[in-house]
């Protein structure tokens, strides 16, 4: 399916990441946003609020992020594509509804323009401290997909992918921007609507008599209907059977939770996405994402001038994590260097996947600004000498 032209602002623009993200959502067919103002993400909803009246849809500023993160799920069950947008403290408030979206398999997009925490922290200065929260923040076991753009162009492009992935896998998709990517302004090319591929919701063709709202297809994903279609479905946050009825037994729990995990884990090869530069034959590979993937470039250049063979692997999809690739590289290289604006989050995944076969060096940063590339350079040199 191609994009609905009403939402697509075809042309060459000079946009910041927040605005580009909003345009990506509109191009993806998002027609419902509920949000609560949390800098540095406010520009996303401000633009949506000004664009949506003539595109046709709803922006509602809810009373808080808890309300926002469930209003969008009501909107999805009414048939809309919907997202909410927030930053640090707001993301913390949304955790319960990530769990609800996971267990009810409600396709939503949550944009988090990361700022430094904990708590109110440093509004509105950059950080990448919500990466683990995005994956693990709600209680219980479930899987999500998280994307990490590093430019306004990618904020546009990946926002479309975020909606498409949410529909394809019926999971909450977290769009993990950071303050720098959100506020940097660059050229953004928005293509013609016919050039934008849209994943349609997996609507059922079954009759109300035959339809079981949580019966998975061969791809492990159930089909959907919307409220008002005459199916009288039941949707619950309780552990449920394929009919959607509560069934609180260990067996039902095992069956449901395993599928919620498997539908992402077993499809990880299709979802995982990263970008590599000179990784083959490298001694040291820098693993980075978001703004840090750009800050790290001068450090890599400088180390290469010193004769060190440095590769670069940039995470585009952060969750699911590219386990296989990191594990494969670990057998071939000396060490990974992982700069991130936190005190060690994605580095834990790199360590896990490296499994002791390669050194893993974190370049931490408490947030508020980006790394000095020299600090990353020094760590690369240290890692190369080890």
């Amino acid at each position, binding site marked *: 399916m191609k994009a609905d032209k009403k939402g697509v602002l075809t042309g060459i623009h000079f946009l910041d990441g927040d605005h580009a993200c909003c345009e990506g959502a509109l191009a993806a067919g998002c027609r419902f946003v509920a949000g609560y103002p949390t800098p540095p993400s406010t520009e996303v909803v401000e633009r949506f609020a000004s664009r949506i009246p003539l595109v046709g849809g709803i922006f509602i500023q*809810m009373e808080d992020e*808890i*309300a926002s993160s469930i209003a969008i799920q009501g909107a999805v069950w*009414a048939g809309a594509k919907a997202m909410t947008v927030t930053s640090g403290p707001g993301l913390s408030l949304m955790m319960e*509804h990530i769990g609800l979206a996971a267990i009810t398999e409600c396709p939503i997009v949550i944009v988090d323009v990361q700022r430094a925490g904990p708590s109110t922290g440093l509004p509105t200065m950059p950080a990448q401290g919500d990466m683990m929260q995005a994956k693990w923040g709600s209680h219980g076991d479930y899987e999500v997909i998280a994307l990490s753009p590093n430019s306004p162009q990618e904020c546009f492009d990946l926002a479309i992918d975020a909606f498409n992935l949410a529909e394809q896998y019926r999971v909450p998709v977290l769009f993990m921007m950071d303050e720098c990517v959100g506020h940097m302004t660059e050229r953004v090319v928005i293509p013609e609507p016919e050039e934008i591929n849209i994943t349609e919701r997996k609507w059922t063709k079954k009759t109300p008599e035959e339809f079981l709202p949580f019966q998975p297809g061969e791809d492990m994903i159930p089909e959907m209907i919307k409220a008002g279609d005459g199916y009288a479905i039941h949707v619950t946050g309780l552990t449920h059977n394929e009919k959607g009825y509560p069934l609180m037994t260990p067996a039902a729990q095992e069956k449901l939770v395993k599928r919620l995990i498997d539908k992402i884990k077993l499809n990880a090869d299709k979802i995982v996405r990263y970008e590599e530069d000179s990784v083959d034959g490298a001694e040291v590979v820098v693993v980075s994402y978001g703004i840090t993937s750009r800050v790290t470039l001068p450090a890599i250049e400088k180390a290469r001038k010193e004769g060190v063979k440095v590769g670069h692997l940039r995470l585009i999809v952060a969750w699911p994590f590219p386990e296989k690739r990191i594990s494969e590289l670990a057998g071939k290289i000396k060490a990974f260097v992982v700069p991130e604006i936190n005190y060690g989050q994605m580095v834990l995944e790199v360590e896990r996947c490296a499994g002791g076969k390669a050194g893993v060096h974190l370049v931490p940063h408490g947030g508020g600004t980006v790394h000095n590339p020299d600090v990353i350079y020094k760590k690369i040199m240290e890692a190369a000498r080890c």
Partner: protein
Amino acid sequence: MLNIEQFDIDNPVNQFLRKDRLPHIWCPGCGIGTTVNCFARALLETDTDLRKTAIVSGIGCTGRVAGYMKLDSFHTTHGRPIPFATGLKLANPELKVIVYSGDGDLLAIGGNHFIHAARRNIDILVVLVNNFTYGMTGGQVGPTTPIGAVQTTMPFGNFEAPFNIPYLADSCGAVYVARWTAYHVKQLAKAMKEALAKKGFSLIEVLAPCPTLYSRRNRLGDGIDQMKYYKEKSVVKHGVDTKETNLSFQGEIVVGKFVDRERSTFLDNMNEHYQKVFGEKYKPYGVRHEQERD
């Protein structure tokens, strides 16, 4: 002996229930089932298209209501049925959306959403079953527990002032506010039918006995004794100022329809405003155009 199943008769409310989920979880003497019966009776008589009717509950004993209704039904998170319903209604304004939940769910953890949905005049009907306690979790004090009532977390009697629910809803802008009890089945069904036809944020508070926890801890007898209390102490005062609808421990219960007014909804206001701002460029949202009708 006569066996009811010999006869080809079915209770007319059965068509609205998910019979495959019965028996329900509510205790003997609990009033929630009675309110559901009233709600089904209201559906029986309403002109609302039931294919386009959705029910949303939160968590708790009353939070289980959605799961027993044969409608599009959503059992959401604790305190959040109103914002879920807000999204459901705004994304498809053709739906009639009912929120059916308890006092703790809607007024403690969900209190913020309650007042804002009423302020915005989101077009939903809220049925709030008030049993004065948190039943599902073992009978803790709630935002409607009367002063003096014993609860597990107020073991020496409650000293916190409770909400006067009709006054709260009224002052936040609800277009329809009524209170009945599980004893007033006819009046309650009638109020539900009337409120289903209203446009805007409508609120029906229903007092319902919780014999297992609230009544037992306060030595108030069983479900029947609470029904007797409702019968003896209820005073019908239609149109009374909602400042005068406070409840006290086993005291007088003012029941009736207190508010019935018109107020433009969130969507009415949005459409009207954008038509002023954008003129003909603006296509009213949620209004089906002739050519789009199927």
